[in-house]
C-alpha cells in the first residue's frame, strides 16, 4: 500500500476555501491540471456516491466516486474508479482545518493506493507534486500564501 501526504497553509479562512472546493464537480474551476468535469447521470455534486468524470489538460480521463463529504469537518473522500495511472484501491481525502491565529487554514490532501512496486515512487511523486501540491499552489495563488 503506497501512501501520499501533502499539506499546506492557505491564506483564507477554512470556510472560504471550503466554499471553493466542496463542489465535487468544480475541479476545472480551481485545479490547473483539470480541463473539464461532469457528474454522471446529472445528479447533484454533493450527493454522496455520485461519480465525477473529468478530463485532464493532457487528455487523460478519470472517473472518481464521492465516498464521504462533511461540511462540518471541511473534508471529503473519494475513490478512483477508472484512470490511466495504473492504480488500484485508490482512496484520497481532502481536509481543511482552521488556524485560529490568523485568516488562514491548514489544508491536507492524502491518498492510499496499490500499484506495481516499480512504479510506486514515480506515482507517489506524480500524485503528491502534480496533483495535490499543484492544487494547493493554485489555491494559494487565489487566496494568498500564509
Amino acid at each position, binding site marked *: 500500500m503506497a501512501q501520499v501526504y*501533502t499539506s499546506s497553509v492557505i491564506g483564507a479562512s477554512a470556510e472560504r476555501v471550503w466554499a471553493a472546493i466542496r463542489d465535487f464537480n468544480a475541479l476545472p474551476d480551481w485545479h490547473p491540471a483539470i480541463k473539464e468535469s461532469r457528474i454522471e447521470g446529472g445528479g447533484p455534486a454533493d450527493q454522496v456516491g455520485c461519480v465525477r468524470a473529468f478530463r485532464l489538460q493532457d487528455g487523460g480521463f478519470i472517473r472518481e466516486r464521492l465516498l464521504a463529504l462533511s461540511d462540518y469537518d471541511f473534508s471529503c473522500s473519494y475513490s478512483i474508479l477508472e484512470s490511466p495511472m495504473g492504480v488500484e484501491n485508490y482512496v484520497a481525502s481532502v481536509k481543511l482545518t482552521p488556524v485560529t491565529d490568523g485568516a488562514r487554514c491548514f489544508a491536507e490532501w492524502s491518498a492510499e493506493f496499490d500499484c506495481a512496486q516499480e512504479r510506486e515512487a514515480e506515482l507517489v511523486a506524480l500524485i503528491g507534486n502534480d496533483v495535490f501540491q499543484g492544487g494547493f499552489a493554485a489555491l494559494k495563488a487565489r487566496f494568498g500564501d500564509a
Partner: protein
Amino acid sequence: MIKVSRSTILDAPVAAVWEVLRDFNGHDRWHPAVDRSALEGGKKTDQVGSVRNFVLGGGERIRERLLSLSDKDRRLRYAIVESDVPLMNYVAEVSLKPVTDGDRTFWSWSSKFEAPKGRERELADLVAEGVYDAGFEAVRARVERRSPASSAPLQRAAGGAAIDGLAMVIDRHGGPEELHPARIAAPPPGPGEVRLHQTAIGVNFIDIYCRSGAFDLLQPPGAPGMEAAGVVVDVGPGVRHLRPGQRVAYACPPVGAYASVRTMAAELVVPLPDSIDAEAAAAGLLKGMSAEFLLHRVHKVQQGETVLVYAPAGGVGRLLCQWAAHLGATVIGATSSEEKARIARAAGARHVILPGTQSLEDQVRDLTQGRGADVIYDAVGRDTFAHSVAALAPCGHLISFGQASGPVGSWDIGSLAASSATVSRPNFAHYTDTPAKVAAITERLFHAIDRRVVTVEIGRRYPLSEAAEAQRALENRETTASTILIPNENEESL
C-alpha cells in the same frame, strides 16, 4: 460542556516541535504560565498514566494525567486530575501535523471541560489565550528559524535618513568622569533591526563595571547601558513582532543604552504590556530579569527554604526579597542602616541583619536554629564572600552575582566542604542570549509585575547628560530603589 480549540503554524519542522511537546514534564522550561513541573511517583515523562504537578506563576497547583501519547500521530491527550483553577472534566489534546509545503508545522491544541456557572467565558479565555496561545508563542520563540546575523548592519535598507541624538560615551575605561556627551546618528533599521526613540534608561551596577573595565562588554569608544524603554520609530525588513509607535523595552547586551535614539537587533526588544510604563520598564527590566533567573533558574527557590539577600533595599535586592517571600521562602536581608532595613522588611524580609557585635554568619545561625541559609544571593563580593560561605546551611547554595565591593579573588574550593556548598557565578548574558530565553524571562516577570508579586520603584531620575552623577551616586551607595536616566528632547540637537 465548553470547547476550546486553538491552532497555529510554526516555521519549524514537525520533528523539532514534537521533541519539545512530547515531554510531558517540560512545560516549566517553556510555558510562561508554568513555574514548576514535577512527575509523581518516579514515572517517566513519556509513560502513559504519569501525573505531572504544575505550580503556576501565581502559585496555583494543577495535577494532570497523560492519557495517551503517540509518536506516530504526534498527538497526546491529558486530563486534569486536580486543580486550584476550577476546570472540571477537562480533557485536552495536543496534535502536530507536518506542513509538507515548506517543512513547517500545524499545531492544534484543544480541550473540553466544564466551569462554574458564570465563569465559563473567563475560563475559556484563560485556557485559549493564557494557556494555548501563550504556549504557541513560547514554543515558536524556541523553535522557529531565524534570519542570520540580524544585528549585522551589512544589508541596510536603502534610503531613509539617520536620526540625530545624544549618547553618553566613554573614550577609555575609568571613573565616572570619563562619561561625556556625544552626538550620534541612529541609521535606518536594516533587516531584522528596529530603531527606537528611548524615553527612559536604566542605570545598573553592571554599567559601572563596563565603564571601569572590570567587565569587557564595552570596548571604548562607546556608550554603556544595558536597558531602556521607548517607542518604535521604524522597523527593518523581516521584523514581524514590532510596529512603529509600539511601546517597547529591552535589557541585554550589547551595551549602548545610554542614548536618546538607538538602532538595534529587533529580536532583543520586547513589547510592553499596557500595565507597565516606560519608566518602570527602564527601572525594572534588567533587575527584574536578573531576579527571575536568580530565583527560578540559577536556583529554583522552594517553599520553606531560608534565603539570605544582601543589599535588600537595592534594585535587585528588593525584587529578590519580594519574589522569594512570594515563593514561600523565609527571607533574611543583610543591610547597613535602619532605613534600608525598613525597606527590606516592607519587601518581605522576615528578618534583617545589621552590622553589630556579632558576625553576619553568627546572626544568620541565631535566626535559623544554627542551620544557616539554604540560598545566599551575594552581589557585594570581596567584603562578604567569606561571611556568605560561613553562613551557608549544609548543602547550601551561594550565588555570587556581583562584586560591588571588589572582586572576590581566589578561593580554595576545599573550604566549601565545611557545608558541602555549591557556588554559582551566573552571568546575565548567558541567561539572556537568545530571544527565546528573553521571552520566557520577561513573560514571567511581566506576569509577576501585573500581579504585584514584585513592584518596581524608582528612586532617582537624572537627565541623560548627568549619567556620570547617576553612576557616582549608585557607586557611593547613596541610592535606594532604581535609578533612571531621562533623555531630554532638547539634547538631541546638542
